[in-house]
């Protein structure tokens, strides 16, 4: 989960701006930058797609950027490896300064440290699946036999070893995106960027793919940035979620922080349809034990969701003890749980 002390973040973005339009660089740092979108466009002819975004991503973390279309999330992820040049700000990936990197340094970063998966796959129609997966290694200059062996290995990882000799247009959308994922994994990057990878897929396949990502994440422990417009996807995958609106991050936090204490009406509006009991953990409903109170009820990890605690609580006369690191940190009463469930539904 979130970074432990002493570990450096894999990705660090500080004050990143992207302004499209004529002489965009003059806007950042002036009062005009704070204008609402429409006014900025009318006055300067520029559009600020990303405004002063800062965040850090820790090793092994799944960091989700969520927002509606036009909120700047796809632009943001592209500025991270300068597929789109940021207008201002500083970006560091795996200890390398991205913003000041020369062309060849940037290329080295893209070849070795970062893999990206795209919404519309971006597969090469004239190459077999195997050669598509090996493409990243090919541009790196890896010899043919070696890169094909590696590509087969990765295809096995995503369950596509049987279609290595097929062509992309012979595969279903879900399988094509697995190829896209395999291509990103093939170069064994430290960081994976997912730009709305499953938006173009059917809901059922989307769910399979989310499971697949969870599995890959568990198996490989890669750091991931995941862009989506789907809140349930964000909650399923994300260790932390940044919600973007009009180019800015309006709230950054764990799923339960977003659901439990939305920063503003915009975020609240987003999360209103999410059943709170599915997201909130015992930490959000427990109370401090009174001094001398007996702590002999059933014990549950403090990170258990409220929903999962319900059957235990129902079977017990006594309040449930929330445990963290083997120590009781709070007590959960029935009425607190009921209130949490009810408030989620009435909102």
């Amino acid at each position: 989960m979130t970074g432990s002390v002493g570990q450096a973040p894999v990705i660090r973005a500080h004050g990143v701006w992207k302004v499209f339009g004529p002489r965009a660089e003059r806007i950042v740092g002036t009062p005009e930058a704070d204008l609402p979108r429409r006014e900025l466009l009318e006055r300067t002819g520029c559009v600020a797609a990303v405004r002063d975004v800062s965040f850090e991503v820790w090793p092994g973390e799944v960091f989700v950027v969520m927002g509606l279309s036009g909120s700047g999330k796809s632009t943001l992820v592209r500025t991270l490896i300068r597929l789109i040049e940021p207008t201002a700000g500083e970006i560091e990936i795996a200890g390398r300064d991205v913003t000041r990197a020369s062309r060849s340094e940037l290329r080295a970063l893209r070849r070795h440290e970062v893999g990206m998966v795209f919404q519309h796959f971006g597969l090469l129609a004239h190459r077999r699946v195997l050669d598509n997966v090996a493409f990243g290694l090919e541009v790196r200059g890896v010899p043919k036999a070696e890169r094909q062996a590696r590509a087969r290995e990765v295809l096995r990882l995503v369950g596509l070893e049987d279609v290595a000799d097929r062509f992309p247009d012979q595969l279903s959308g879900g399988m094509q995106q697995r190829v896209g994922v395999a291509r990103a994994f093939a170069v064994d990057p430290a960081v994976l960027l997912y730009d709305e990878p499953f938006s173009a897929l059917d809901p059922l396949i989307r769910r399979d793919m989310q499971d697949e990502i969870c599995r890959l994440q568990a198996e490989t422990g890669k750091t991931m940035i995941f862009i989506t417009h789907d809140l349930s996807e964000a909650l399923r995958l994300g260790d932390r979620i940044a919600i973007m609106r009009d180019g800015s991050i309006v709230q950054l936090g764990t799923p339960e922080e977003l659901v439990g204490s939305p920063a503003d009406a915009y975020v609240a509006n987003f999360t209103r349809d999410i059943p709170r009991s599915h997201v909130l953990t015992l930490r959000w409903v427990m109370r401090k034990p009174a001094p001398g109170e007996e702590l002999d009820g059933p014990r549950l990890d403090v990170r258990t969701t409220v929903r999962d605690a319900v059957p235990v609580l129902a079977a017990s006369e006594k309040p449930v003890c929330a445990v963290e690191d083997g120590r009781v940190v709070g007590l959960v009463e029935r009425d607190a749980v009921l209130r949490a469930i009810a408030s989620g539904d009435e909102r």
Partner: protein
Amino acid sequence: MASVAADTVSTRPLSHRPWWRGRLVGVGVVVALMVASYRLGVTTDANGVAVARFPWPEELVWNAFPGHLDAFQTWLLDQRNAEDPSIVFALFNGFATLVDSLVSWLDRFLLWLTWVGTAATATLVALRFGGVRAAAWVAGALAAFALMGLWEESMQTVALMLAAVALSLAVGIPVGIAAGLSTRVQRAVTPVLDTMQIVPAFAYLMPVVILFSVGPGAAVVATMIYAIPPAVRITALGIRSVAPNTVEAATSLGATRPQILAKVQLPLARRMLMLGVNQTILFALSMVVIAGLIGGGGLGDLVTSGLYSSPAMAILAGAAIVIVAMALDRATEATASRTDPTRRHLDDSARRTLRFLTVGAAAAAAASVALAKELGAPAAYPEGRSAQEWLLARIQSALDYVQDPARFLFAVTEPLGNAILVHLVQPLQSFLILGPWFTTLAGVTAIALVVSGVRPALTTLAMFVAIGVVGMWEPAMDTFSQVLVATGIAVAIGIALGIAASESALVSRALRPVNDVLQTLPQLVYIIPFVYLMPVSIVPGIVAGVLYAFPVVVRLVERGLRDVAPEAVEAASAFGASRTQLIAKVKVPLAGDAIMLGINQGIIMVLAVVVIGGLVGSGGLGYLVTEGLVRGQFGQGVAASLAILALGIALDRVTQATRQAGKEVLA
């Protein structure tokens, strides 16, 4: 591109007032004013013949201009033929010599292979890359040359084509790639390409001849001017139409720009590049006949020299050119589709098989050449054993038939030709030639202003003034009237057939082969039959212009109508609109851009053909250019060429209206 076009057409809201409503009225008002002023401007001379009261004033003609041009030509010739020419002329001379020797080397090579060897090699190449049907086309075409007894001339033409196409691609593909990769390059080359395509080939024959002197070199250069633009445009389009997300994906993996070009963009654009080659060949072929005028030799020469002296031979050679064009078109198109790496799905073993087939085909070709030489096959198919005599006799009797006033056909063509002349061309001619020059000038400028805007109007004004200043007002008005008549007919036919084709799949399917054939034919070939069929001086040029231009109008109109948003049609139908109402009130207004583009393209194509009509007595500017070429009246010829250029640019600007939207429809 297709989807972009669909978007631009379909996103237009239904309530939007069609752009041409107001403009059409404006044009009508301008024309009415011009007609009114014509009545005031014409007077009669002593003999009762109508003359212009206000012809283009003598004081506004730069009389010394042709003289200057003649002096310039003398200077050029002196420079070119000097013992020690300056570096520029040395380059021109060197290039001409290089191309001359390239063409003659290719020609000699084709003859060296012997006719058997050439036929076998060409068929095998077509078979390997284009498939059985392509091979059948190629073999059929070669058999036809043999049968017609035109083997040598055909080989000369093929050699000329190969050289012209190779050089056009050598220039066009790199420039096209640069334009595809960089918007700045694209923006820089587009106006150049536009001009190259607007200018009728007839207008640059004179300058080319002067710089490169008559011969294959000049013919290749004139062909290149015409054939490079499609090579550049289609290559650029191919590079641009590669899905941006594949390029982005490759970039995200750290591919360098050369890697992206070689591994992503070029393979994915392969099919488009091959179609660019196909178009380049067709454009080059359509110059064959014109090239015959300036020393291209081969079939083109037979056509131009035979037009009057041996019409049957001209028609036979024209047919051979058509066969070359169709065979090369089908063969390259099949190759484009069959070698597209995104569709072929080649695995390693298929790749090996193909490589084996390539080697096999090459070996078979080499073997057949060796065998043919061993058995002493002649270089060209012997004329004596061809059916030429018989064919010429057939053609001649057919010509005699259509030209016999007693025949039924004559009763159709004669009155039709006369009707076009008497009721359309002559009134318009006298209107434009006799009307006061200033109202004509003001009129076309006003129409350009109403239809296309301020800048096109200024260009139009400048171009018409230039025509007057170089002393070409009257012949230009003559040509202009012919162009208007031909365009009017072409657009009327085109819109009618376009609507019919968009409404009925049957009509669409029936029209497609006709359009394909008409569009593959070289420009001058259209004229040949009508010279004999409608022997009224001006009419063949006009009819040929109509035939050349209307398929494009049909295609654009049909495409525009089919691209109209289905929701709009559905909504109108739901309110109970009849089919006629649907067409008149929904589809045609919404397809206005495509129709306007059809007019724009049509008028330019008509101009190109109508000036060629000068060769066969259409008069006007084309005649003056022909005179210049044939009689060496340089000054006059170049002035007429410049007037054609000016007229072309002006007509393009007047009709360009919504060209930006239209370009996407075309693509």
